[in-house]
């Protein structure tokens, strides 16, 4: 366990950023926080969480896959992959750290997504315990401890100091480079952890009943009438999907500038009417089906394929940002009640 005074945070960031890119949450002009590349003058956000999740680090919204160059009637392939370089993400909350595991299970199983894998290998994740969870937080429902986030390094912030606990080899290696850190006592943060856990106890959805969901629940849930009412006012926008730390669907598109063609992937949303549209048409023709797909995937299909792990981490982003305030909690509660 190491520590550094809060007033010295800047020197810590500078030290980390010395040989790599460092992303930290900073406040934007409207007071919301975003992961941005640290530079001299960056100020760490005190918000509970960022608007966009930390998944951007490995799975950016738009990523070039490859290019083609057309000369006359000849076509040649162009490598467009970013060069591998190590980077660090600071301030990842417990929920987002868990989301990496969920994404890994998709992208790192065979066939491995090499674009994702490359970034994943080169990252050092520095998590940060949640000092002041929001009413929308419900990570505890998924067994996540906001007081003890995972990651290569785990940090806690008290009034005066930032505590630093490396968890992995990568974390140790980074720690070794950071002479600005001083030794600290593990006991120093016990009080902070307890406070976080006490707040977590009070979270309205901290003990959300998930018993209706999980492996093998497809038949029970699929044709339930509640889906219609739940999805009724869904606008079909992609807000929930794009801010969700575990949504991992993408579309592959091409951009032709007349000389070269760029094949890139970009986030897609199962809420969109053209999601997985094929020549025969739309497999999920109405919003109800698309809506159901999203929540069934998070709460049933994914657990079915991944030893019962839910593809939701309780970060609460969708609770805040859905334009019509429909969200996974309402779905869990409505469907849960319906099955009782």
């Amino acid at each position, binding site marked *: 366990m190491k520590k550094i005074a809060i007033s010295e945070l800047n020197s810590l960031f500078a030290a980390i950023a010395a040989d790599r890119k460092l992303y930290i949450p900073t406040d*934007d*002009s*409207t*007071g*919301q926080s*975003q992961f941005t590349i640290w530079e001299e003058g960056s100020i760490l956000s005190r918000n*509970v969480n960022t*608007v*966009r999740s930390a998944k951007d680090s490995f799975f950016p*919204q*738009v990523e070039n896959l490859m290019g083609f160059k057309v000369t006359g009637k000849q076509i040649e392939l162009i490598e467009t992959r970013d060069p591998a370089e190590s980077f660090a993400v600071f301030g990842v909350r417990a929920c987002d750290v868990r989301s990496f595991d969920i994404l890994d299970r998709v992208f790192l199983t065979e066939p491995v997504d090499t674009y994702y894998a490359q970034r994943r290998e080169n990252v050092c994740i520095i998590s940060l315990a949640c000092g*002041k*969870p*929001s*009413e929308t937080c419900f990570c505890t429902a998924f067994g996540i401890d906001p007081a003890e986030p995972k990651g290569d390094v785990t940090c806690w912030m008290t009034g005066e100091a930032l505590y630093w606990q490396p968890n992995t080899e990568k974390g140790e290696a980074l720690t070794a480079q950071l002479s600005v850190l001083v030794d600290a006592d593990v006991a120093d943060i016990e009080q902070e952890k307890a406070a976080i856990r006490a*707040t977590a106890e*009070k*979270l*309205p*959805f901290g003990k959300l009943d998930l018993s209706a969901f999980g492996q093998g629940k497809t038949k029970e849930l699929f044709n339930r009438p509640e889906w219609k*009412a739940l999805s*009724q*006012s869904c*606008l*079909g*926008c*992609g*807000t929930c*999907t*794009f*801010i969700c730390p575990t949504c991992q669907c993408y*579309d592959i*598109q091409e*951009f032709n500038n007349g000389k070269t063609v760029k094949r*890139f992937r*970009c*986030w*897609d*949303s199962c809420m*969109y*009417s*053209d999601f997985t549209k094929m020549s025969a048409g739309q497999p999920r023709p109405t919003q109800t089906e698309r809506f159901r797909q999203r929540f069934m995937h998070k709460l049933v299909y994914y657990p079915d394929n991944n030893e019962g792990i839910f593809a939701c981490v309780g970060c609460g982003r969708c*609770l*805040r*940002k859905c*334009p*019509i*305030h*429909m*969200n996974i*909690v*309402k779905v869990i*509660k409505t469907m849960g009640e319906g099955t009782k």
Partner: protein
Amino acid sequence: MQRVKEKAIELLRSGEVSRVLGWKTGEFFYDLTPAVFESVEEVEKGFVFSLFSGANLSKYLIAESKKEGKIAVFLKPCDSFSFVQLQKEHRIKRENIYAVGIQCDGMCDGESLRSAGCEGMTGVEDGESLTVHTLYGDQVIEKKEALLGKCQTCKSKRIVDFDELIGQQGEDVPSDRFAEVAKLEAMTPEERFAFWRTELSRCIRCNACRNVCPACSCEKCVFDNPVSGVQNKAVADSFEENMFHIIRAFHVTARCTDCGECSRVCPQNIPLHLLNRKFIKDINELYGDYQAGADFDSRPPLMDFRMDDPEPSVIYTRGGAAK
């Protein structure tokens, strides 16, 4: 506010309508969801009209009014402009709708309270000012500060079209809604460019602004349509950020009622209404005052002209920052 719920029950009970479009209670005090209620029981259980009924329901009528039976809808003044505009564009079947106008003193939502500094909110007490209960203690904030952006520059308390009114009919109110636009216009082009880059670069193309917008009601948006030639799904480039928002604003020009929903729903807090308002301001200045949705007869300025309209070069010579 209770009268609204009572009216919903009354309408269903009397058989005047078979469905009611309103707002449904959420898990918190602030997360109301637009919903269609089909029975008195449903209304009793879930219907609520409160300080958090900000969502404009009129767009739902495009689909709902085409279904069997009559539907009642509750419209705040600003919503009623959208309602009329949609009728002008033949998008909704008026005969299937029973419109109830309700007055409104401005709305809040969770995000607007959060911007005002509240976190961990568990409840609220409405009054002269708002007392917000949070996990970390109570907070008192001025109602004005917590109001939605769109309500802070409310343009009208007039309900343009309705079958029944709850409370008083209001009037257009003086509003300085163009002040922000004027402020931008007064900047240098470099400052404006920097401003919009900062704002638009946050766009994640979630389409919330478009999908909530009552004017953006195309059967298929050009940006979703591979045949259009401009289809794109992501902001792959700063150009596409600009392109999407310019074209979207252009497509709703003279049709946008300035209901403010786009800015309300933007997860990235991009002040999208400033784009639409720019067009409204320009139209007012160049072609005479025009308010979309304010009436049934006026011709939309982009589908109209005068022989002596100013030439496009007028923008070179008009106010705003010099070169």
